[in-house]
Structure formats: C-alpha cells, structure tokens
C-alpha cells in the first residue's frame, strides 16, 4: 500500500523545474543565508549527452511520439472556442507541428522549444494606456470585449532583469545588425547600449535566404504611416549559444550550437550539445553546486494546501512513482509550472478566486485566476504569404532561432501609425530557416486535409527533391497580436479528469478580431518584401472564417496576470499573490512566473523571454519575503 511521507521543511518550494523555477531556485539557493530549496517536477532528469546524443534524430519518435514530452494518458486538457460549447479533450499528439505538447522533466518545454528570445519592448508593457492615449476609443471599436491591462511595471522596470536573464541563459544576437543604422533613425532604443545591455554572444551565421531577406528589407519602402524611413533587419535573437560560453554569474560552461538542423522549430528536437538554453544546463547546475538544493523528479504535484487563517500556502502534496503521497512543507512556494498547469493547480487547491465568466464584462468579485487567456501566435494556418524564389540552397530543417535568420521589429508594437488600421500592435517578421522541418513535417506541412489530401502522383511529384530546391518556396506568417478578451479563460473541466481523478484544465479561446485584422494587414506588407526579394507568384492567403479549431500553432499566455490591482489581477509586481479580501499588510507566500502569468498582447512570439524577467523579480521578492514576511511594497 502507498503511504504518506512527510518531507523536511524547506525555505523555498519550487513547483516544476523549468526555466522559471530553475532561475528562482538558483538565485535563492545561492543567497548568503543558505536557504534550503527544493524543486519538484513530474518528469525525469534529461542529460543531453546520454539521452539525446544518439537517439534524438528521430522525427517520428520526437515529432509524433513526443518521446521527451508529457504523456497524454496522465494528463490532457480540453479546448473549445466559446463558453457555450462542449470542450473536447486533446486525445493525441499529431504531426506536423502542433503545440499541445507540454514539456516533461527538468528543463520542461525548453527541451523542444525553438530558442527565440527577443525582448518585449516598452509598448507591450503599457499598451492599454498608450492605446487609449494615442487612439481614444479604438480599443472598444476593434475589440469590444477586450480585457486589456497594463503591466505593473514599465519596460525600464524590467530591463535590468532582461539583462541578467540574458547573461545567465546565454543569448546571442546583436542590437545593431542593420547596415544602415543611424542614431537618428528608429533603432530600438529600448534594446541598445544606452541601457547597458549587450547580448553575451554574437549572432549565428546567416543562411542565403536570410541574407536576401535582409537586402530586400533595406530596399523596400516601409508602409504608409511608418515611424521610420527604412526597415531595420537584424539577426534573430536566439538562446542557442553561438560560441563556447560560461554563463554569468554562475560559471556554468555551455557548448556551442553545431547547426545540425535537428532543433526546435517544426520538429521540436531536443539539443544534444546543451547549446539550447534550458534550466537543466544553465541554472539547475548552479543551484546544485550550492549544496542547498534538492531536485525531486517523477513527482506529480496534485494539491497545494491553502491556510485561510494565515493566508499562506503551507504544503505541496505530490505523488511519487510508487503512488506514495509526499507532503512538502515550506516557507515560500514558487509556481513555475508551464501554462495552464499553473492555473490548474491553483484552481484545484483554492489558491485565489477562480474567474467566472458571466456572458459580459467581468463584474466585481468575478475572480481573476484563469482570466485573460491569450495566444502568442497568429492563425498559423490562416493568413500567410508565399512566393517562389529562384534560389539554390540546402533546406535547413531547424527553426529560425537555431541560426540563420533575420528579423525586423519595425512592424511591431506602435512603430507605425494605427490611426486608420483596425487593430493594435503588430508582429516580429523573420525569414531564414526555410523548407523547415523533417521530411515528414515538410511533406505534410499544413497537414493532409480535404483540400490537400496527399493522395496520388501529383502530390507525390511535388515532394521530389524538396530538400534540394533550385527554386524554393518562401513564406512568412505574420504573428499578429492577440489581446485578452473577457470570454477567453481557463477553468476546470466539469467532465474529464487526469489519471489520478482530478479535473483537467479547460481552455476557452478563439482567435480575436485584432489578430485577424493585424495578420491581414501585415501580410500585404510582407508580400512587398518578398516581391523585392525577387520572389514570383507572391500570394497572400485569405483569412479563413472563424471555425472551431485547435489554435494550431498556439502558444498560450495570460490567464493568471500580474497587475496593479488586486481586483483584476492575481499577482502584484513581485509576482506575489495578492491577498484578496484580506488585510493588505499581510502578504501571501505564494509566487509564480511563466508564460501564463503575463498580461498578453505582446507581439514577440517568445513568451518565455517575456516571463523570464518576472521570475528574476520573483526571486528578489522571495528573498525579501524570507527576510521579512508580508505583502511586498509594489
């Protein structure tokens, strides 16, 4: 029979062992007070040398079998488009690319991510205020159900954390990659050296198609309303080491990328050299080196114990592989779980007030846990731009971050006038790694469907020598900006449960009007750049009508926001849980950070990097709390 095991008390209990927990664990364990820290994760420890070096080159096992990702029979999620629909459970992993694969084990989803790590600029943090100021009435006009909020801090408040995060995880890139950058032109002042920030490593080499994209950007006049005179193409900011590196300040050695192409992007391969930034190879080793840190693997956290008298989380309960229940008491709890699991454990445990949708704008007391679910990506199968380029080169199956690509940020944020446009925000646009994915993904790109059946000699002929193109298709999918709406949220599913009998999370979400409108506009702008590249047959795909979809290509965000106001957010600026309805002098000991926390609407498709500075700030907040418990001063 299984038994109940009481674990020794810890100063800090980290839920999960990915990007966010890894950083918080390392920071707190390294503190001079010798705080005792434990991180608990549902999966195993992955060692890149022994686990990935010979068996990762396996598209079927990685791409469909998801052999390094979370098993669906243990826990899935249900999804739907609107609050009146029945939500269907995600029953299987599919190919080509889909994003319902949660990470599994130390490092979490960083095993399979692409490594995109560009920062979110100032607009992203204050888009509600800036939009209302610059375009009065616009938000209501374009998205009447919007639930947009500002972040609690502005970009300057997060900038120092960005810088530290980039040194620890090891980013490569340049803030000044454009040949004709001048100080008088828009050059992302929020990224340049005036803040003292430099990426620790130089950018990756460029593919041929990226170089052509770069030249074309420089030669293409910007659209009407642009606040710049020419585009500023620069190498993709990546979390894959471009050279041997020792991270700062932890001193963990990092191997460089070998450009084998079996990387993130469409196939979601793990990294066999450890070049792709991941807690397991950047921060967890630093935590371990202190002697103050314990790592618990194969442990499924199913409850937090919330004490209503002291307004604190007192215990985390988890199952071990033998079915024993472990009770882990702690002074502070940090939730670094991925995505909707962070919300699910709060809802299961009664930590905070669940968001309840009542067919209209949130009323007073309608709760905030689960509110404001958004998506980092535009309709992947929706608006896109394609063309044919007279270009001979090797296809390169990795994603853009693993080398070779060029981005422009000029069409992000409010870098162009939105007065006459029916959306806010914009997108990062990049090109470089092309004909992406393994042969299965590339063949089935877009998915076999009634309009692309994959049957017969005509389809087959199109696959011949697709990896050795003398003319190649190029395309860009504008990742248009999502904004939170009050009918998009996370709650518990009333019908489906996990393997232990607890309700699954239920996601209610659909593409917003802002995304469709933004993508439609941006597609025409991208088409002009592709045409300048010399591409022929440039086509803008029509935006499909809204149908029940699985948000193909989604990267969910929001749903558990940090904010300025306890009534409409879950966490304060320190990522510390507000005490709703309690004396405000008492603070909870519950902190969290992750893609799911942040108020969304940002347009960099790298939620991890946007969440990274939050986790650093949470670590500072936790250290303050350990010295002097209570609600931290915002």
């Amino acid at each position: 029979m299984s038994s109940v095991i009481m674990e020794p008390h810890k100063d800090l209990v980290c839920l999960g062992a990915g990007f966010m927990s890894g950083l918080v664990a390392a920071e707190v364990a390294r503190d001079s007070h010798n705080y005792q820290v434990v991180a608990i994760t549902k999966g195993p420890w992955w060692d890149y040398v022994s686990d990935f070096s010979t068996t990762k080159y396996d598209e079927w096992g990685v791409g469909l079998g998801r052999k390094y990702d979370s098993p669906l029979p243990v826990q899935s999620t249900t999804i739907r488009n609107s609050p009146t629909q029945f939500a269907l459970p995600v029953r299987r992993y599919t190919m080509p690319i889909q994003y319902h694969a949660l990470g599994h084990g130390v490092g979490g989803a960083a095993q399979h991510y692409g490594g995109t790590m560009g920062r979110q600029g100032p607009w992203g943090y204050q888009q509600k205020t800036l939009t209302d100021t610059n375009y009065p009435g616009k938000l209501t006009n374009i998205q009447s159900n919007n639930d947009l909020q500002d972040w609690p801090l502005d970009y300057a408040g997060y900038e120092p954390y960005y810088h530290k995060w980039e040194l620890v995880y090891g980013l490569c890139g340049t803030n000044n990659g454009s040949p004709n950058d001048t100080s008088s032109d828009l050059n992302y002042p929020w990224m340049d050296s005036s803040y003292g920030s430099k990426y620790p490593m130089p950018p990756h080499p460029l593919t041929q198609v990226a170089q052509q994209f770069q030249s074309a950007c420089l030669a293409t006049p910007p659209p009407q309303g642009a606040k710049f005179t020419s585009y500023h193409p620069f190498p993709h900011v990546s979390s894959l080491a471009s050279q041997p590196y020792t991270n700062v300040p932890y001193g963990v050695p990092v191997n460089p990328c070998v450009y084998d192409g079996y990387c993130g992007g469409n196939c979601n391969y793990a990294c066999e050299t450890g070049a792709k930034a991941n807690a397991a190879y950047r921060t967890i080793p630093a935590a371990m080196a202190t002697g103050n840190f314990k790592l618990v693997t194969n442990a499924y956290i199913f409850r937090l114990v919330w004490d209503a008298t002291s307004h604190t989380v007192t215990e985390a309960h988890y199952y071990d592989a033998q079915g024993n229940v472990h009770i882990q008491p702690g002074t502070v709890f940090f939730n670094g779980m991925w995505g909707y699991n962070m919300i699910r454990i709060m809802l299961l445990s009664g930590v905070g007030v669940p968001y309840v949708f009542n067919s209209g704008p949130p009323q007073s007391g309608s709760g905030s846990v689960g509110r404001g679910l958004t998506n980092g990506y535009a309709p992947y199968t929706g608006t896109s731009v394609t063309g044919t380029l007279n270009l001979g080169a090797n296809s390169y199956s990795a994603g853009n971050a693993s080398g070779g690509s060029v981005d422009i940020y000029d069409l992000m944020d409010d870098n162009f006038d939105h007065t006459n446009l029916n959306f806010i925000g914009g997108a990062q646009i990049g090109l470089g790694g092309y004909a992406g994915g393994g042969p299965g993904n590339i063949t089935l790109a877009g998915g076999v469907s009634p309009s692309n059946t994959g049957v017969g000699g005509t389809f087959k002929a199109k696959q011949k020598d697709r990896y050795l193109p003398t003319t190649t298709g190029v395309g860009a999918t504008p990742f248009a900006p999502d904004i939170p709406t009050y009918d998009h949220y996370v709650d518990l599913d009333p019908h489906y449960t996990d393997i232990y009998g607890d309700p699954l999370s239920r996601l209610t979400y659909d593409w917003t009007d802002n995304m469709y409108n933004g993508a439609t506009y941006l597609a025409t702008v991208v088409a002009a750049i592709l045409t300048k590249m010399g591409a022929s047959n440039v086509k803008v795909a029509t935006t499909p009508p809204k149908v029940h979809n699985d948000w193909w290509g989604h990267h969910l965000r929001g749903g558990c926001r940090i904010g300025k106001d306890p009534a409409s957010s879950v966490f304060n600026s320190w990522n510390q849980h507000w005490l709703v309805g309690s004396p405000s002098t008492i603070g909870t000991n519950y902190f969290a950070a992750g893609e799911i926390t942040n108020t969304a609407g940002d347009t960099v498709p790298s939620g991890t990097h946007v969440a990274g500075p939050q986790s650093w700030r949470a670590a500072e907040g936790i250290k303050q709390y350990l010295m002097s418990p209570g609600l931290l001063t915002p």
Partner: protein
Amino acid sequence: MSKTTRREFLKIGLAAAGGALAASGVEIPLFSAKDSSMQTQLNSANTQLINLQNQLKTVTGFLTLNVKEQALLEPIVETIIPSDSSGPGAKEAGVIYFIDRQLAGDYGQSANMFMDGPFAIPSSSPIVAPGIPTSKAYLALYPSAPTSMTYSGTVVPRVGSGINYQYPLNLRAFWKSGLEAVQNYAKSSTYGATFQKLSADKQLALLLDLWAGKPASFADDFGNIIRPVDFAYELSFMTWAGFTMDPLYGGNQNMVGWQYMGFNGVNLGNAYGEGLSQKDLMIATTPTRLKPASLAQYQQAANGGA
C-alpha cells in the same frame, strides 16, 4: 526471378533489402581485388546474397495486419504514393510494413493517447450534448454544480488536430473498422468490385471520395459507422510517414523516401567522408545532395568512434 542473370538478381536482392540492412547492403565489396578466381568471387557473392535474403525474410512479415488487410492496404498505399516515372513509391519503401509495425505497437494501442470518456464524436451538426455527467472530482470542488450539463454550438475540429479523433477505439481497432469500410464501399454499387480489382483511376477516385466525406454511410462489417474523412486522414498520414520516417521503423526502406526528397537523413555532412560540416550545409549557396544516412548508421558510426 528465375529469368534474371546472377548479377541482376544480386542487384534486386540488395535493393529490396530492408532499411536496416542498407549500410551493409551497399557497402559490401562483392568482388574484392584480393580474390584470385571468378569462382571464389561468385561463391563469396552467393554467400552474402543468401545471408541478405535470409535477413530480408526476417523483417518483411506481418505482426498485426490480417491477410485481408494486407491484400487491401497494399494497393491503397500504392495509390497514395504510386511508383511512377518520378521515382519509387510506397511499394519500394515498404510502407505497409511501417504501418503494420505501428499498428502492432504503441500507436495501434493508443498508448500515448488520452482515452478516457465521455466520448463526443465531432460532426458538422451541433453537438447538443444532453446531460453529460459531471465528474465526482468536480462536484467535490464545486458542490453546488449540477450533476450533469448540457451544451450547444457546432464543434468541427480541424482534421488531423489533437481534438479531432474522439472515438472510444484504439487506433488498431479503428483501422480494422476503416479497412473493412473501405472494402465495403468498393464492393458497393458505386464501384462494384473489391478495391484490389478496381482500375488505378477508380482506386484513386475512391480514396478521394473518402476525403470528400463519401459515402454517407461508411461502415465496417458489423455496421459500425466512422467518418470517411477520419480514416482518409489516417491513410494519407501513415502512408507518407512510412515513406519519410527513419528506416528503423520498417518503412522508408533503403531510404528511398529520403533519396526521393533529397533529404540527407542523419548524414550531418561527413557520414561517408564528404568532409562537410552541418554549418557548411546551412550557409551553402547551392543545394548539396548527400547520400542519406539512417539513425542506425549514425549510431554505428558514433559507437565506432568515427
């Protein structure tokens, strides 16, 4: 086979060898310069050929597809990826063995799928789910919740998405029903013969029918109905997977799928001493066709310290 010369026979044997044999199959020096007589060389070649044939016999059987399914699935996959003037197809790649292995293993058992109820099959008409019971765990958390719930609204997931397959059948059972349903449709008045006996045009038309949602009643031998498009997806997806995945899975034999696509497999630039790095390939300005290498070859080279 009996009409072929010994040397032609040798080539055929090698070409048909399973993917796992590809490395030895193409690398064996059949006529070594050290051999003094033609007879010695022929003896040596014969021995190697017999060994290869014996190995081939051990990897080209079936684990789960029954005799009817074997006979039906073969022309189906060969219709999806025909062997034609553009190059080898599903037949040469051994796609049917890939599918058999998958259906016999975790894939067929739906081992990594979420298979708990309740089940609601997507359709183009609204799912007006009457009284779906609320879980005990949910009621424990929210005691005032109703004990069952009703919904409205159309639910039509994208074919091939993770929420599309909602059958309470594992994939092996689904394929059994699906293959029976294909044969029943072929024998119906629309086509009038077993799938195997239909002309190539009719075979192609039938598979496209499935994609178009036809026939309206797509049923197995016991009248169980599935959506034609769901099985059409499975057929196209698994056939192309069998053509493009690593030979270790039983398809893509001799890496013919990769060669057809110009994919280098796990040849990262120097598998056969080409002297290239993957970075060279990444920034190259002209396409570089390399002889593909399989995962097994890569591992053998890695284990050998190459």
